[in-house]
């Protein structure tokens, strides 16, 4: 088994058994910053190799996905899950957006198997991260004049997640592959090790979410597993049929659509839709969907991607 997944499992076990192991929060911050910059840098280098015109249709397509996913999730949560409007909107925003950690695991998964993917996918993380937040707020409040859109925009674009990834993208783009070489030992060589530590801490956090799971019933459990399968399949089909991505790229896109945010969206929702209960969405996205995706989802999306290619052709 991939050691990074084992680190996650280790984290869950240590968390559940109430061990004293914890990463100091400043180290968690440091590690997140390194991961976000690394992913951005890699994406930026590859972006420099693409003519932007060929990318534009793909970007627009991904943007559209970002708007549609939360609109699909919202009624399911409201009518089947019987959640309050604010809660349904907030959870929908989490699932419409993406998880950078899951994305990183999918890259590691494909690298281990030497499956090619478009490295510029990092750009899509950013593109997918944003629309769901806007839709989430609108679903919760309508297009109300009261909403402080200035604050929302600030939260979205200048929050740690997006700012560092976009920053990394630009630095990678401008410095190019040779320029970045001198900083590769920190940002690229250590990447998987840093990701392992990140997953250890994610395991610990996931474990602390598990107790809320009982409290919020089994709808969340089902939702947290079925929704990513549905969204993941959708992502795979769009990626391979409409966007012409490679097999690996298709898997990454499927992973992105299947994943649920736990960095940018919780922060934005907490500020903009404070009446939504943050435990609900974090329990689902961190406690269920994140472990599901990194342990079962990603291999599943690869199988789906393979089948899709076989049925429809690449």
């Amino acid at each position, binding site marked *: 088994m991939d050691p990074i997944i084992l680190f996650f499992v280790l984290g869950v076990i240590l968390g559940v058994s109430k061990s004293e192991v*914890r990463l100091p*929060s400043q180290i*968690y*911050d440091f590690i997140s910053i390194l991961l976000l910059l690394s992913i951005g840098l890699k994406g930026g280098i590859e972006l420099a190799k693409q003519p932007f015109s060929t990318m534009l249709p793909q970007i627009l397509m991904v943007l559209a996905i970002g708007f549609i996913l939360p609109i699909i999730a919202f009624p399911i949560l409201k009518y089947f899950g019987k959640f309050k409007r604010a809660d349904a909107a907030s959870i929908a925003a989490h699932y419409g957006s993406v998880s950078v950690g899951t994305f990183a695991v999918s890259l590691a998964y494909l690298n281990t198997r030497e499956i090619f993917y478009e490295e510029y996918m990092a750009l899509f993380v950013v593109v997918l991260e944003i629309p769901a937040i806007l839709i989430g707020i609108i679903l919760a409040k309508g297009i109300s004049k009261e909403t402080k859109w200035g604050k929302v925009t600030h939260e979205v674009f200048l929050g740690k997640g997006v700012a560092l990834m976009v920053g990394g993208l630009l630095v990678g783009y401008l410095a190019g592959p040779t320029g970045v070489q001198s900083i590769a030992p920190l940002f690229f060589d250590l990447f998987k090790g840093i990701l392992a530590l990140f997953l250890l*801490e994610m395991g*610990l*956090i996931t474990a*602390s979410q598990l107790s809320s799971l009982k409290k919020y019933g089994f709808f969340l459990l089902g939702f947290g597993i079925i929704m990513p399968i549905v969204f993941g399949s959708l992502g795979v089909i769009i990626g391979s049929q409409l966007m012409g991505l490679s097999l690996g790229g298709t898997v990454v896109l499927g992973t992105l659509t299947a994943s649920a945010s736990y960095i940018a969206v*919780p*922060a934005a929702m*907490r*500020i903009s839709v*404070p*009446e939504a209960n*943050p*435990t609900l969405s*974090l329990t689902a996205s961190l406690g269920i969907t994140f472990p599901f995706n990194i342990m079962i989802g990603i291999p599943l999306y690869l199988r789906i991607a393979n089948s899709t290619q076989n049925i429809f052709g690449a």
Partner: protein
Amino acid sequence: MEQLKILTIVTESVLENQIAEDIEKHGAHGYTITDARGKGHRGLRDAGWDYNSNIRVEIVCNLKTCNAISKFLLDTYYNDYAMITFSYDVTVQRSNKF
């Protein structure tokens, strides 16, 4: 000389910037913030990661400002955020500046 108060607020870290603005708007001349963790009616907030940590804010101010700030914060945030506020009398040395 006017009796001065310490108003202490323990609440979620995500509110730091907003509350800092609120405090100034209500006429306080300053504030002091420390990182904290804790437990209350809304469960354990153990500072493990960003969305689950508290801040502890202290404001030296007169009674009027104290009441205005605590009323505003509780009205605005109390329903949706973990929050507790309390106050007590203090003697401030060189208090002419408050």
